[in-house]
């Protein structure tokens, strides 16, 4: 698994494409806590790149450093070719960031918020008004242009917040958990918007704790946990790296799930994952024959199965496998 970290699987795939973001050994400490613990990241231009990790993994801190909001304690980074530490004002001129909490003035109307930013960027009079109106129309907010933002719904706020990041087309758009707290239909709307932006050539670096979101949107995914990058690649590569011979079994009797997990672990010598709901076990089997033997062992022990299947791991299983890997560095299944 460590190959995946040291040598990003498809590094060759974007060699030669200029990088939008490049970090080396980025570190941020809060007191005794290493929020970001030496992250190397290369984000090619024009790509949707996802940083995937649980709460507290360091995603937001990493984004805030790249957006010049927090200064790193060690390491270096360039954003659109500008050094983060020595040329922060140039970095600011080529990025935009939409954080987890709407960066909007609740008392002002949607249009006034956009006008404020347009004028801060240096648009004057008619140009500023034209840009604000164009953004309102593009983000389907024209009807709410003259409403105060405090009367906006969550989805409208998020759209306005993203629109506010596009007053000037940024080289890189940082989106920190762009769909957290949105209902499913609003989430779909934001996804469409992100895809549309990427199609028009904006590099997008987004963080998410939703595996589905990373899988749906991103061309590449970096998985981070406890401030470290534990894997990087395309969604397919990440799944392949965990192995394709994954056995999933659904146990009929919840009470015997520990016993079943024990048998699978003995037979297959892999890390057994339990689904969040608890009734399904997943483990790396390697070959169909090994999987067959393991199922036979369960049946011989009198444990009833309601379902079983072989296949690729879900991104969720990849993530759990990777984070389990961190907890227990020595794993046997890589040999399988």
């Amino acid at each position, binding site marked *: 698994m460590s190959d995946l970290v040291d040598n990003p699987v498809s590094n060759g795939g974007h060699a030669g494409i200029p990088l939008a973001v490049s970090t080396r050994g980025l570190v941020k400490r809060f007191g005794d806590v290493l929020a970001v613990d030496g992250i190397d990241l290369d984000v090619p231009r024009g790509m949707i790149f996802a940083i995937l990790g649980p709460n507290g993994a360091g995603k937001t801190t990493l984004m805030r450093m790249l957006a010049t909001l927090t200064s790193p304690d060690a390491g270096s980074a360039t954003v659109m070719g500008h050094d983060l530490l020595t040329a922060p004002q140039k970095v600011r001129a080529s*990025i935009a960031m939409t954080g987890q909490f709407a960066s909007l003035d609740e008392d002002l109307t949607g249009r006034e918020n956009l006008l404020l930013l347009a004028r801060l960027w240096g648009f004057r009079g008619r140009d500023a008004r034209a840009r604000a109106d164009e953004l309102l129309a593009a*983000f389907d907010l024209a009807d709410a242009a003259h409403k105060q933002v405090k009367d906006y719904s969550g989805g409208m706020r998020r759209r306005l917040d993203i629109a506010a990041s596009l007053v000037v087309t940024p080289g890189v758009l940082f989106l920190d958990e762009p769909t957290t707290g949105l209902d499913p239909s609003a989430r779909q709307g934001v996804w469409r918007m992100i895809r549309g932006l990427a199609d*028009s050539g904006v590099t997008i670096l987004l963080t998410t704790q939703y595996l589905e979101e990373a899988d749906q949107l991103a061309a590449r995914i970096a998985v981070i946990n406890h401030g470290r990058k534990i894997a990087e690649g395309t969604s397919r590569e990440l799944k392949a790296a965990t192995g394709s011979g994954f056995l999933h079994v659904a146990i009929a009797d919840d009470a015997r799930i520990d016993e079943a997990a024990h048998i699978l672990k003995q037979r297959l010598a892999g890390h057994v994952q339990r689904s969040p709901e608890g009734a399904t076990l997943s483990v790396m089997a390697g070959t169909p024959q090994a999987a067959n033997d393991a199922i036979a062992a369960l049946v011989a022990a009198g444990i009833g199965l309601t379902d079983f299947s072989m296949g690729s791991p879900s991104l969720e299983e990849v993530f759990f496998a990777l984070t389990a890997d961190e907890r227990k560095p020595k794993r046997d299944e890589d040999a399988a």
Partner: protein
Amino acid sequence: MTDNSPALTSGLTMVKPPPAPSALSNALVFGWRAMLKFRHVPEQLFDLVMTPIMFTLLFTFVFGGALAGSTSAYLQFFLPGILVQTVCFNAVYSGMGLSTDLGKGLFDRFRSLPIWPLAPFAGLMVGDILRHLIAATIILTIGLILGYRPEAGLLGVIAAFALLVAVGFGMGWIFIVLGLLIRTPTTVMTIGFTFLFPLVFASNIMVDPATMPGWLRVFVNVNPVSLMTDAMRGLMGTGATTGQILLALILPAVLTVALAPVTLWLYRRQ
């Protein structure tokens, strides 16, 4: 307006940044934001003027006769001072507003823009100055209705208001720093008033310090709020000396020189 509508339909054009605007232009844009706030949240003025109006009525009609022999004599003494008090207390509300803004992530947007770093604070100051002028005008109007008469006439009042703006500008830095340090708006208010109460009450705003114990009189006489009040009384009344005006301006000047860099450092530090 539905949330599942497709966004970014088509025609969003790619736009390069226009030539970078000047620091002054940035500051003026933030000033414009402060003015919009008046339009959208006019009730903020209610907070600003109710306390000083209550104070004026209470002190004039309840204590005034006892303190100065007659309510009209007391009002003549008290009104320039209540204007100083109003400006000092208003600065607390400004710090609370900043603390609220910071808690909501709005300043993260400003901090990630390539603008003059102090521009958002310059904008806050513009808003503060407007608030001070509006509140002072309302209180002066009530004073005039109750019988207050500025001997120095219109020019004296204009000069006094200019001094008031300088005082408000200086005091504003204290609460900008508090607003940057403290993420709970109510805590900003508590700390602000804890600090302001002794300054405002142990001053010559309400009473002549002649009857106070000696140790307190020493403090009252050097209290910057007393110095500001002396200058205000002079400017609106029978004339202020240059010395009085300079003494009144010491604290605002010191606060500005000392706290503007602190503000910038705190703002950039996070």
